[in-house]
């Protein structure tokens, strides 16, 4: 059993984004870190055909007591981490409550309807103001710009994990991340991922 305490049990985290953004790796890294601490972790994921350029979601249930179901009930998300702003809102609408902490990347990935000019992608500044009216614990960072600055937009998931680490809503630390990434990725990729984590950590004041 873990000596680290959860704010609630089960503690429910959703990591969301668009297919191809590294959602699955982020959820496995986070789940792995928490399992190492002795928690029972369930990660519910969907991936496959329906996720080609579509919305993706991982549901993490963290508990000291029971194996959670792989789907979080409506209104029960404690933390939502989103790699894309419109997806943050979609998931918030399905699973959020007034106390939900939301952390989202602000760089949009346009749905095909927007690409085609049939739909509008709402201005992110307006989105941000509207979200803060509904869930006060909301944080917006341009993780994609940071990842690009580090040389590869694929690092956006790790930048987001770093920011989540700084928010301290979920019990893990930089050391835990370092161990988790070393278990998952080849040695050559470690330094850049730790750099991305630190960059994300620094983006939250």
């Amino acid at each position, binding site marked *: 059993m873990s000596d680290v305490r959860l704010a609630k049990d089960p503690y429910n985290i959703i990591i969301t984004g668009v297919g191809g953004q590294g959602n699955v790796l982020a959820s496995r890294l986070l789940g792995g870190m928490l399992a190492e601490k002795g928690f029972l972790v369930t990660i519910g994921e969907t991936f496959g*055909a329906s996720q080609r*350029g579509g919305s993706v979601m991982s549901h993490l249930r963290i508990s000291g007591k029971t194996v959670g179901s792989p789907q979080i009930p409506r209104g029960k998300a404690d933390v939502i981490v989103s790699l894309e702003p419109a997806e943050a809102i979609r998931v918030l609408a399905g699973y959020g409550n007034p106390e939900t902490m939301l952390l989202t990347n602000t760089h949009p990935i*346009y749905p095909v*309807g927007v690409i085609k*000019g049939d739909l509008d992608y709402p201005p992110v500044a307006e989105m941000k103001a509207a979200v803060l009216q509904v869930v006060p614990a909301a944080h917006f960072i341009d993780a994609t710009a940071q990842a690009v600055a580090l040389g590869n*937009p694929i690092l956006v998931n790790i930048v987001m994990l770093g920011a989540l680490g700084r928010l301290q809503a979920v019990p893990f630390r930089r050391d835990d991340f370092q161990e988790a990434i070393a278990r998952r990725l080849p040695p050559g990729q470690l330094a850049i991922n730790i750099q991305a984590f630190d960059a994300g950590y620094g983006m939250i004041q």
Partner: protein
Amino acid sequence: MSYLIDEGQNIQHLLMGNEAIVRGALEAGVNIAAGYPGTPSSEIIESFSKVAKERNLYVEWSTNEKVAVEVAAAGSFAGLRSLCVMKQNGVNVASDFLLHLASSGTRGGMLLVSCDDPGALSSVNEGESRLFARLLEIPLLEPGDFQEAKDIIPWAFELSEEIRNIVMIRSVTRLSHASGNVRFGPLPDTAARAVFNYSGPLLDPDTGPVISMILAAPELQHGPQLEKLKKAAEIFETCPFNTYTGPDAPELLIITSSACSLYSREAVAILGLEKRVGILKLATTWPLPRRLLTGHLARTARILFVEEVAPTLEDHVKIIAAETAAEIGVKTFYGKKSGHLPAVGELNPDLVINALAGLLAISYQPLTDEFTGKLKGLADRYAPPRGMTFCPGCPHRASYWSIHNALELDGRRGFVCGDIGCYVMGTLPAGFSTVKTLHAMGSGSGIASGFGKLKHFGMDQPVLSVCGDSTFFHAALPALANAIHQRSPFTMVLLDNRGTAMTGFQPHPGSPTNVLGDPVPALDMEKLCRAMGAKVEVSDPFDLAGTQQKLNHLLEYAEGAKVLILRQACALSPERRGKKKYEVFVDESRCRGEDCGCNRLCTRIFGCPGLVWDREKKVSRIDDIICVGCGVCTDICPAGAIVRKEIA
């Protein structure tokens, strides 16, 4: 080295349900694993392949699911423990052989693992495979969580050897693709020697030939097969994976299995019904353990079934309740048939909460109406729907562009019969709505072969089929043979993207390497089609002009079956991923935007995610983060405003 073969005391890992199944099989000393890729089952064979050398395993991606079962059966006949794995639709493909195998019986323990996809999250239907267990008259097990997904596998191998027949394991997406903590057990010695004994008496289960040939004497094999099933039912009465939690005499009894048991547990906990509602979680769902069930049924008046997808437990338990009514009394049943749970789609904790709240007259409102209204307001304004489309740089978009244009130019209302792969999106605007029939693996070409013969009845529409390279070997070859033999003048467009792309680039008989990465003979599809007698052309779908010219030519040719191989690797494949061939940009001085007359052809119709319509500047632009540099859009723009430069 894979963590799946970690050894030692108290080892625990966070495993996907599919990985837990693999670890369970390794702990059972499995030697043979065969399958055909299909979401959500594919990680099972992939995980086996990573430990094949260390664990003395023979692993293969077979040509199709029927062959996979046959390959695994050979292992069993030779005394080895074997396993075959597929998604639910694969069980349909394998069912002919399975029906015979269930009759002949097995020797070494043998498991059929079917991963179903309730809700059709990554499937063309949400077909239910559990009913096959009843049809095949074989035992069925459904693990309820991640630990059980591991633990049930060695138990299932023991059962298979005990009754000398194949045992079916059924998982679902929310178990196969979800992850949870799994405690490892010890790994056995896997040194094994395969021998097929056949010189004993005809029906001797250990030494005779293994045959399914009962002719007019069903009692010889069907009789013993039913005895095996009876024996399994008896073993199921004390199966450690059937569990009950709740009061001795619950107001309401939930009978559930698989991931639905987790939804049920969560719903009961959220509503605080632990002292009123019992949960009977069954792992042995065919044949049902009759005494166990009647014992539970006798102690309650109301029963709710929570299961996916078909009301299978519901029907089978009701039969037992009817047969034992004098003993257990009259019961009221709720579930899909009563409308308390939906008959379509996957379940979740909220659906179970609603069913329980309705049945027990409890009110449940997780959020205030006001807050729910605010959330809805946010989603309506700020979360534009995300439609499905092909990836940036996908060869299918280019292929469908050419097919669509060729058919429009042809002007005879031609159409495409679709098949299974990412290219199912040919039914959508992503593929210019070119595909007009879509069914099972290989069926597009079979249907097209039939359409091709309707000229006699006055049909003069040109007919095409599309078919992926893996699908070609899986099930389209017999359809092509049929078309050639019957002189059906359709055009098979073979979308060769160099692997089973949709499920993660698994090799197929046309691939130069196998699942272990070892070099193997690659069957040459072009030579194969020519040798069969088809007229064959080959093109790169990224060469739009060349591809359309070849298509026009083939559409005119009416002498028999034709094949156009469109060869270009998937944009996500290891050979293309992260490698841009071209730097692509829009020359704003040449893009005339809305004044062009093309009506935003590039963004509105072609619809590649890497090419976006800039609403402020009213021109197209390339999104550098998304674009993978295939350069195809350069040839779409009538004004020549999209420019590509080869990257050295």
